[in-house]
């Protein structure tokens, strides 16, 4: 059974690219266009990995991670922040929120897959 990944990003083009990249590598992908929808999706179906953007309308990525981390369902699921902000401060915030790691944008598809493989195989 293919691993299921949730990708949360408010940019449709980026989301499409992530989805396309992951799907072509054989992963199962669900999408959400902001943090709130992301939480809904994650609660509806258990996913194996969450990739989230930081800056989104409604709920941002850090809050999404914090929210899901607090649920038993996602206590230990890998969650990666996809962000253009690679500052130490942002990394610290990510770490505190419970993110597994971070991946800076712009990312290229190869690298995305590489990271995903490292996390969920």
């Amino acid at each position, binding site marked *: 059974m293919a691993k299921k990944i949730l990708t949360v990003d408010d940019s449709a*083009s980026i989301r499409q690219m992530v989805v396309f990249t992951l799907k072509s590598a054989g992963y199962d992908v669900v999408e959400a266009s902001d943090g709130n929808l992301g939480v809904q999706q994650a609660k509806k179906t258990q*996913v194996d990995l969450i990739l989230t953007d930081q800056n989104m309308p409604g709920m941002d990525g850090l809050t999404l991670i914090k929210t899901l981390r607090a649920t038993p369902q996602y206590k230990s699921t890998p969650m990666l922040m996809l962000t253009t902000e690679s500052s130490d401060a942002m990394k610290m915030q990510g770490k505190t929120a419970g993110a597994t790691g971070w991946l800076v944008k712009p990312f290229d598809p190869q690298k995305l897959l590489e990271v995903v493989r490292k*996390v969920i195989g």
Partner: protein
Amino acid sequence: MAIDMSQFIAVFFDEAAEHLATMESILLKLSLDEPDSEDLNAIFRAAHSIKGGAATFGFTDLAGVTHILENLLDRIRKNELGLRADMIDVFLRSGDVLQDILSAHRDGSTADLDAAKEITSLLEKFANESVAEELLAANTIKNSHDGLLITVAAGESFDHQAIVHALESYGELCSSIEGGAENDWVYQVITQASPQKITDTLAFAIEHSRIRITLPQDMLSGDKPSDGEGYGFFSDDKPVVASASQDGEGYGFFTDIAESAPPPADIEADGEGYGFFEPRPKVLTGAAISSALVQTMEVKVEELEPQAAKSKVTSGAVAKSLAPAADTSIRVSVEKVDQLLNLVGELVITQSMLVQTALNLDPVIHENMLSGVGQLERNTRELQESVMSIRMMPISFVFSRFPRLVRDLAGKLNKKIELKLIGESTELDKGFIEKLSDPLTHLVRNSLDHGIELPDERIAKGKSPTGTLTLRAFHQGGNIVIEVADDGAGLNRERILAKARERDIPVSDSMTDSEVWLLIFEAGFSTAAQVTDVSGRGVGMDVVRRNIQSMGGRIEISSMYGIGSTMSIRLPLTLAILDGMSISVGEEIYLIPLAFIIESLQPRPDEVKTMAGKGRVINVRGEYLPLIALHEIFNVPPKVTQFHEGLVIILEAEGEKVAMFVDDLLGQHQVVVKNLETNYRKVPGVAGATIMGDGHVAFILDVAQLVHISQGLTRAVA
């Protein structure tokens, strides 16, 4: 795995355009004193998203400008930087520049790089001002980077020009040396920007690991590097890489990149652009990765393995993948929708033919048949409405450009103008949306330029110094009306008449105001020398009217000297199908668009009178309405000539009520409008033609025009 990115680029273009539009509209309504934090966040997110996408899709120029913009916006939203009026101007212009770059990428044309450069330096100025303030406040002058040497390690080539361009946006590029597979590239920049910032920008084009930024402290103390050679030496107390300068490679750098350097972890980890938290840094040597920002990575290996195993178990129990939450839409060419609309039109004709035939059937014997026809009628109508709605768009698509236009123009003319948009959600056909833009722009410009007075003038007239320009859209009957109204000077009747006489246009002082206003649509008025409020109104108004008429619409003016003017554009609501009432006059059948009909009645002989100065009128419950006979207008022999033997239909068009005498009322139909002009020629009083269920052609009446004609007739009678 090679991935074709081109398929996502189109989406990115649309998205970026949307973000730019959002940014502009928020910027325009942003209050300087108390900017709404959600608005600030939204603008920031817009810039942020454009940058992210631009970088991902390799539009470095776009990413470069947005990057600076985003940084500024970020600091503004975090209250690190005060918002000023001049910033909004520059932000708006940045939006234009981004739009320009975006269309250049989309169309493969060339963007105005000078404009981009100019705007970047303006943005950078804001950033620097604030940096300077911060530095001053913190007394940390040593962090001020006046000169930086940027070295890109020899290797795979990249867009040298783009880098030069990007660096120039940060300050003065003193020199640059192109490298290659064996030589390093070297750039020397005098800038206030931090090395981190420059690294971030360059990383969009070059791998992080290849970039070295050095900070020549000496430059601060005046010991400038030798110009022209593109490299320099730094004081001995700073460790300099041995191979520097003399050997012609043209670079030199410190091993230690001071506080501004990326965190240590970042330096170690080449070729990655991601990282994991916990438990401890572990650098992986992944394969070299293309042009992405390079960062560190720490792996949570121990924990990951069981985690992966665990998720394997859980995922088995999970339901099938859900449908994507994203809104789904497809883009269809307008031709396809038009074709669909045509087909539905034909279906409507066939359907009405069936209905007409079915009327002759015995309702008891053909009960099933009749209920089927009834159902077909309903379905056809719904189908038609759905197809029509595909083409409908809110007028906000046109209106949205005006806040910006008015703002810019008001600034240019030193006028104070408040723009009101009303009825933005009013929908109209997409075909109109595109064609409306030019005439409306023209009317708005005219209003601002010649209608609304300068603040002093307004105060002298006892008006508020701020003029109001209102754009309003609403449905009225079978029309959509778009009004451009201002509370400005209004049209000057005397001046227009004088102008007309000058041009040998026959006029008389007894002409009504509306007849006088129509004069400004004369082609002659447009070329007139500019005489303030009047002639300005005439510039190109003939073109405006032609454009509106080509859409099957009409433009009307109402104006009062000193009070203001309103230009109303009336367009048919739909292009193709209308609800009409069929009436007969003699052997002819005409259709009146249902929307104009108020009621129909059979008059008593004593209700029709001829009044001095008003011609023939009919008394409808105490109200005297002008009565026109359709057979007189079209000159067809009627079956009935006595008013009390026929029917009178009360119509309302453009606020005027009129009674129309016809032989008989036949019934209500939904008809497909065929353009008469393209098939025959323009006929006064006729808006179009249609094919009836029985195959006959019937004229569709242009009620508003008939009202005008009737007014002409009554005057003639009077």
